[in-house]
């Protein structure tokens, strides 16, 4: 039995992600945000279900499509929004932007824009915990496309032979940029790749937050108990294009998109909570309203924050002085 508090927290996080992402897309389309933006709308259940199985002191690494993962691990949306706005008050002082948000205090070891690069790094985090003798676990998100990188294969093998407390969570949204999964690999279930490394692998419905939560909890328990790494594949879908501005229609049919939208992970979970009598509609509405405000306030905070000074660019290259 999952306690009610946990169930409600998962709902709250899913809605927080959805609202944050919707707002970010809206702002980006208005030209308020520099750079580019990868939206994770549609994938909320993976981020939240997986992170809900972690403790606050566990570690996590995310990807270019990372806002959802980072919120799920507990990041503050005001600091995130300020980073998207390239403000001095943002998580990375405006140096990283949408693709590179980190909060080391929350165990968020950052997000990388290099596909697959997070997997070897998560092994290092797990190794450090193993060496220090703590029972912390480390989780890495990555996409279906990333499962074809050398980094993926090298990292799974190393985690396996060192029995590292790692959970590899694949967000299989069926596309790597414009390339459908069936074009970029011959397998359907990415979890079968675990076999090749002698570790457990499972494929689950990535649009069902509780399914993801249960699968991850099992893997976390194994990792904490010195049982080694697990590969979890979560089948899901990104509703929008690869990046905001890519309509995502050149390589996907309208029907396919609509069919996945009809399996909205947030709506499904809401219905589930109500059907099981966990709470009443008004409780969920209250959460929705609160988050609506929270995101508005985050935008206000970001807008009212100062820009970095141009010279700030010279700081943080090293610990210590800039080396000209």
């Amino acid at each position, binding site marked *: 039995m999952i306690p009610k508090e946990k169930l409600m927290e998962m709902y709250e996080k899913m809605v927080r992600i959805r609202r944050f992402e919707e707002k970010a897309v809206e702002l980006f389309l208005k030209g308020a945000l520099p750079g*580019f933006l990868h939206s994770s709308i549609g994938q909320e259940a993976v981020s939240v279900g997986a992170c809900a199985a972690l403790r606050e002191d566990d570690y996590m690494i995310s990807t270019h499509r990372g806002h959802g993962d980072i919120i799920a691990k507990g990041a503050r949306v005001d600091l995130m929004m300020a980073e998207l706005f390239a*403000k001095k008050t943002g998580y990375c002082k*405006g*140096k990283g932007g949408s*693709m590179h948000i980190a909060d080391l205090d929350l165990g968020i070891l950052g997000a990388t*824009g290099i*596909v697959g690069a997070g997997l070897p790094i998560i092994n290092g985090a797990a190794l450090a915990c193993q060496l220090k003798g703590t029972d912390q676990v480390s989780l890495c998100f990555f996409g279906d496309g990333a499962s074809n990188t050398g980094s993926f294969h090298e990292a799974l093998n190393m985690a396996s032979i060192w029995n590292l407390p790692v959970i590899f969570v694949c967000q299989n949204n069926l596309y*790597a940029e414009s390339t459908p999964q069936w074009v970029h690999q011959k397998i359907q279930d990415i979890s079968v790749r675990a076999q090749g490394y002698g570790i457990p692998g499972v494929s689950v419905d990535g649009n069902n937050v509780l399914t993801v939560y249960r699968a991850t909890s099992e893997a976390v328990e194994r990792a904490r108990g010195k049982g080694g790494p697990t590969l979890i594949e979560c089948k899901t879908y990104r509703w929008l294009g690869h990046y905001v501005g890519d309509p995502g229609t050149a390589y996907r049919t309208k029907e396919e998109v609509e069919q996945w939208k009809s399996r909205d992970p947030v709506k499904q979970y809401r219905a589930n909570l109500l059907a099981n009598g966990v709470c009443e509609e008004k409780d969920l509405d209250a959460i929705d309203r609160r988050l609506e405000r929270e995101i508005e306030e985050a935008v206000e905070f970001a807008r009212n924050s100062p820009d970095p000074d141009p010279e700030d*660019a010279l700081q943080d*290259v090293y610990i210590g002085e800039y080396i000209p």
Partner: protein
Amino acid sequence: MREITYREALREGLREEMKRDETVFLLGEDIAEFGGTYKVTQGLLEEFGPARVRNTPISEAAIVGAALGAALLGMRPVAEIMYIDFSTIAIDQIANQIAKVRYMFGGKARASLVIRTQGGAGRSSAAQHAQSLEAWYSHIPGLKVVMPSTPYDVKGLIKSSIRDDNPILFIEHKLLYNEKGPVPEEEYLIPIGKADIKREGKDVTIVATSRMVLRALKAAQALTEDGVEAEVVDPRTLVPLDEETILQSIKKTGRLLIVHEASKRCGFGAEIAALASEKAFYDLDAPIKRVAAANTPVPFAPKMESFVIPDERAIIKGVRELLG
């Protein structure tokens, strides 16, 4: 003469060479139906079919390695690496294999391939999507490095690069694709190793590469108001470098300013400065000057990004300092 974009000119060059030589084929991420992230290869799948316009998984080492293997058997592959930042994943193939096979095998192998990629900042794409790594690759004996700045040059040089029997790293710039310029309808080639004087002048030589050529030209225009006539030299290819054109220009002007977008330390400007001090010391009337990016990763925030990347003002200031 008709004017077309850098992107269109490049595509024309690729198309002409594919028509001319059946051994030419393209491979890279999302280059087929999607036409590449920067749409350079759009339409080529339809024209040449999936055997010659090949989508790949996200596997940079395997892409570049496959290009080498095919080249060894007499093909002329053109591999696209979406961002030069991702070439780092293929660096073993580039630096240890491609650049060295001919030499190690005692002159027996022919690595006739082109790696097309793009670099550069200016779009707030942050530290992992905006680097200028041309100097790294220029340091590796065995590779040629081409860096075209105009539609005319990009077409003539891609054609020559494909026909060249040596491996070529062909570096485009993400902010040049939409630039328009005159490109003749009739076929032409540009020799690899021939610089171009983009503007004649007698007072100062500005050697600039890639997008910085455009900025140098704008700066040169502005400087005419001070009565200064700057000569702008675009090496177009870094390896081999057309030393003669650069040295002749210095002989004429007696002053040298070097401009590039890569960070200054060990940038390609150091090589040009060394060339000038070794071979044109007595022609110089003033110390050599370099205008280049600060020695930092590329920051996300537009204000910081434009602070670290040289602009027209920095070039004008550099020229004024040189002229005393």
